[in-house]
C-alpha cells in the first residue's frame, strides 16, 4: 500500500490517527490521583543542548539535582535539614530550554498543564524569562527564575507568581566599574567588547552608565559588538591594540570567552590593558593557567571562589565535587539559591497552614523572604518582595603555580544596596540618575 501524502483520504486518515494519538498521549500524562502527602513536583528548566548547555545549563541542572537529593534525604545543613518541601519529597522533571521562544512557552505550558508540576524553577535566557512570565501569571503557576539577567521582568509590571532569588545583571556591571576604579583609578579611556545581543548590549550599557557616574572624565573609546559565537576576534584585537584604551570590559561567556582569551594572549592584549570578564568565574576551572594573571574576574555575584567561607558553602562544594568531579560554578550556586529559597517559602507556608500549602499560600510566604544560601545572604527586597538582592564580589585572577589551582586575590565585596537599585526604582533609571541611594559602606 503506497502512501502519498497528498491523497486526501490518506491525509484525513493520518490526521485522525495523529489526533487520536495525541489525545491518548495526553490522557496517559494525567497524573494518578495523589494520596497525601504525595511528592511535590518541580519542573527544572535549563539548556541541556546547544552552546549554553555546557557552561550554564548543565551546571544549573546539576546544582538542582544535588540539592534536591540532599533535601529529600534530609542531609542538608540547618536550617534546611527537613525533608523536601514541607516534609514532602521532591520529584524533579528536567526540561531542555532549547528552541524558539514559542517552543519554550509551549514546554512551560506542558509542564504546568500537562505534567501539573507544583512549581517551575529555571530559565537562563532573558528572552525565555520575559516570554514565560505573562504565561506563568495567566496560569497562576509558581515560577522561580534562577539565572536570567534582565531587570525588565519585574520592572515593566508587578508580578504575583513569578520570583527571582538571584540578583539581576545590573549589579555585575556596576560592581565591575567599582572594582576597576578601585584598582586602577587613573583609567581615562576604556573600551568594551561584548556579544551583539541583549545580554552583551545591556551589560555594556550598564557598565558605561556606571562609569559615567563614578568616573565622569573617563572616555569611551571602542565599542565592539561581534556576532554571538563569532569565535574569531582577530580584527577586534587589532582594533584594541592600535587604540588608546587603558581598560577593557567584556561580558563574553564560554566558547567566545575562551577563544578571546587564547587569541588575546597570543597577541599580548592582556599585557596592554586590564580586562574585566564579568562572567569569568564560570570558565576559570577550564582555562586554568591559560587565563592570564591580573585579569579581573566576576561571578555574577558572590559565587564559586568569591563565595563566603561558611559551613553551607563548604557542604555545597563538597557534595557537588564528589558527584560531578568539578567545582560548582555560578549557575550551580544560583540554582541552589533558588531551590533553597523555594524551600524556605514552602516550609513557612506549610507551618502556617499545618498541611500542604496552595500555590497562593506559598506565593504569599515567598514575598520578601531573607535567608542564606551557599553564596551568602539574599533578601527579596525589590519589586514587592519578588526580586532578590545580594552583595557582589570581584577579584583578580592568579594561577597558583605551586598548588596548580586558580585563585582569586584582592577580592572586594560590595554590599547589596551599593550595587542594586533601591526598591521602586528601575535599574536603568537608577544608573542614569547617578545611582542615588547607593549604600556602599
Amino acid at each position, binding site marked *: 500500500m503506497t502512501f*502519498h*501524502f497528498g491523497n486526501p483520504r490518506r491525509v484525513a486518515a493520518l490526521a485522525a490517527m495523529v489526533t487520536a494519538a495525541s489525545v491518548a498521549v*495526553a490522557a496517559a500524562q494525567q497524573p494518578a490521583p495523589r494520596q497525601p502527602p504525595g511528592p511535590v513536583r518541580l519542573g527544572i528548566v535549563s539548556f541541556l543542548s546547544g552552546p549554553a548547555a555546557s557552561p550554564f545549563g548543565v551546571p544549573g541542572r546539576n546544582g538542582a539535582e544535588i540539592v534536591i537529593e540532599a533535601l529529600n534525604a534530609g542531609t542538608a545543613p540547618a536550617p534546611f535539614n527537613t525533608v523536601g518541601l514541607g516534609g514532602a519529597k521532591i520529584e524533579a522533571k528536567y526540561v531542555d530550554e532549547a528552541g524558539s521562544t514559542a517552543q519554550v512557552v509551549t514546554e512551560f505550558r506542558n509542564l504546568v498543564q500537562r505534567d501539573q508540576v507544583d512549581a517551575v524553577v529555571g530559565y537562563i535566557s532573558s528572552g525565555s524569562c520575559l516570554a514565560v512570565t505573562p504565561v506563568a501569571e495567566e496560569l497562576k503557576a509558581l515560577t522561580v527564575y534562577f539565572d536570567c539577567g534582565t531587570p525588565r521582568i519585574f520592572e515593566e509590571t508587578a508580578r504575583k507568581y513569578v520570583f527571582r532569588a538571584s540578583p539581576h545583571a545590573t549589579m555585575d556591571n556596576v560592581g565591575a566599574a567599582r572594582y576597576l576604579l578601585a584598582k586602577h583609578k587613573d583609567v581615562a579611556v576604556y573600551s568594551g567588547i561584548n556579544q551583539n545581543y541583549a545580554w552583551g548590549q545591556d551589560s555594556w550599557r550598564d557598565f558605561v552608565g556606571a562609569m559615567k557616574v563614578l568616573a565622569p572624565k573617563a572616555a569611551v573609546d571602542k565599542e565592539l559588538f561581534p556576532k554571538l559565537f563569532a569565535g574569531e576576534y582577530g580584527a577586534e584585537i587589532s582594533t584594541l591594540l592600535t587604540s588608546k584604551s587603558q581598560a577593557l570590559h567584556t561580558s563574553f561567556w564560554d566558547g567566545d570567552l575562551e577563544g578571546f582569551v587564547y587569541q588575546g594572549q597570543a597577541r599580548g592584549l592582556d599585557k596592554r590593558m586590564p580586562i574585566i570578564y564579568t562572567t569569568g568565574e564560570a570558565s576559570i576551572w577550564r582555562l586554568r593557567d591559560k587565563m592570564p594573571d591580573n585579569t579581573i574576574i566576576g561571578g555574577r555575584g558572590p559565587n564559586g571562589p568569591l563565595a563566603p567561607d561558611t559551613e553551607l558553602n563548604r557542604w555545597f562544594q563538597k557534595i557537588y565535587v564528589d558527584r560531578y568531579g568539578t567545582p560548582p560554578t555560578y549557575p550551580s550556586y544560583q540554582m541552589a539559591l533558588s531551590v533553597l529559597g523555594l524551600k524556605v517559602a514552602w516550609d513557612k507556608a506549610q507551618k502556617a497552614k499545618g498541611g500542604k500549602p496552595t500555590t497562593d499560600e506559598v506565593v504569599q510566604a515567598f514575598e520578601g523572604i531573607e535567608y542564606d544560601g551557599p553564596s551568602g545572604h539574599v533578601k527579596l527586597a525589590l519589586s514587592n518582595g519578588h526580586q532578590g538582592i545580594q552583595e557582589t564580589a570581584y577579584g583578580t585572577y592568579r594561577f597558583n603555580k605551586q598548588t596548580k589551582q586558580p585563585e582569586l586575590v584582592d577580592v572586594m565585596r560590595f554590599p547589596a544596596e551599593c550595587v542594586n537599585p533601591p526598591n521602586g526604582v528601575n535599574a536603568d533609571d537608577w544608573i542614569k540618575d547617578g545611582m542615588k541611594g547607593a549604600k556602599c559602606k
Partner: protein
Amino acid sequence: MWSRQNIAGALAFAALAVAAPFLPSWLVSLATIAFANGLVVLGLVILWRAGLVPFGQALFYAAGAYTVALMSRYTGLRDVFVLVAAGALAAGLVAFLIGLLLARYRDIFFAMLSLAMSMILYGVLVKTETLGSTDGFHVETGTFLGYAPRGAALGLALFWLVLGTCGFAALLIATYFVSIAGVLAAPVRDNEIRVEFLGLSVDRLIHLKVVISGVLAGLGGALAALAVAHVDPNMAYWTTSGGFVFVTILAGAGSVAAAFVGSFVFELARSIAIDFFPGTWQIILGGALLLTILFLPEGLGSLAGRLRRVPEKAS
C-alpha cells in the same frame, strides 16, 4: 472552489473547532502555534511547486509578527482581526518590494538572497535596543471584536481564530492551485524558457508567488505573535526559516492539507522528543526524519515525478 477535496478539508477544520474545548489546554496551545506555522509552510509549498525554495521566509514571518507587536504596543489597538490583517498586509508589502529583486533569481541564489534579506532584518532588530534587542518584548492580549477573553477561554479563542484563518487560507490556496497561475508552477519548474515562449512572463509569475507566500508567512507570524504573546528577533533568523523549509519538505507539496498536518505532526513529535529525551532529542528527531525521507520514497520522492505530469483537474 467547492470540490469534494475542499469540502472534506472544511469539515475537518470544523470538526477540530468543535473538538477543541474538550481537548487538554496544552494540546490546544501547541496546535495553535503549529497551525500558525502551517500557514508559512503553505506559502513555501506554493514556491516549491515552482521549483524555488527560499531560505528567508522568516523575513515575512517576523514582519507580520512585529507589525502586530508594534501596533499593539504603540497604538493601543487590540482587536485581533485588525492586527492580523495589518500584519499580513505589512508582510505583503515587504514581499512586493523584495520580490521585485528576488523574482529575477533562481535555485540557490534565490534561496541565499532571500536568506540575506531576512538576516539583514535580524541584524536591524538586534541592534534596536528600544525593542529589547534579542530579548524581544511582550505582545498585549488581543480582543475579539470587543470580546476580551482570559485564561482558558483566551486559549480557545486564539485557537479558533487560527483555525478559521487557516481554513480560509486553505480554501483560497486550494483554489489558487487549480487556477492558471497555480497550474503554471510545474511548467515553470520544468522549463522556464518554454513558458516564456508561450508569451507569459515568468518573472512576474514568480513575483506573484513571492507576494502570496509572503502574505501567508506574515499571517502566520501575526497569529504566532498573538498566540505566544512575545516577539523577538529570532523570528527572523535563518534557523527559523530552515525549520519551516524542514517541515515543508517533510509534508510534501502534494496538497494544502499536508502543510497543516505536517506542521502539527512536527510540533508534536518535537514536544514528545523533548519530553522523553531531554538531552538527546536532537539526534532522535534528526534520525526519525532521516528515516522518514529514506523510507518514504513514494511519499516524498514521487513528488518530483508527480509534479512533472500535468496535474489532474480536481473533481
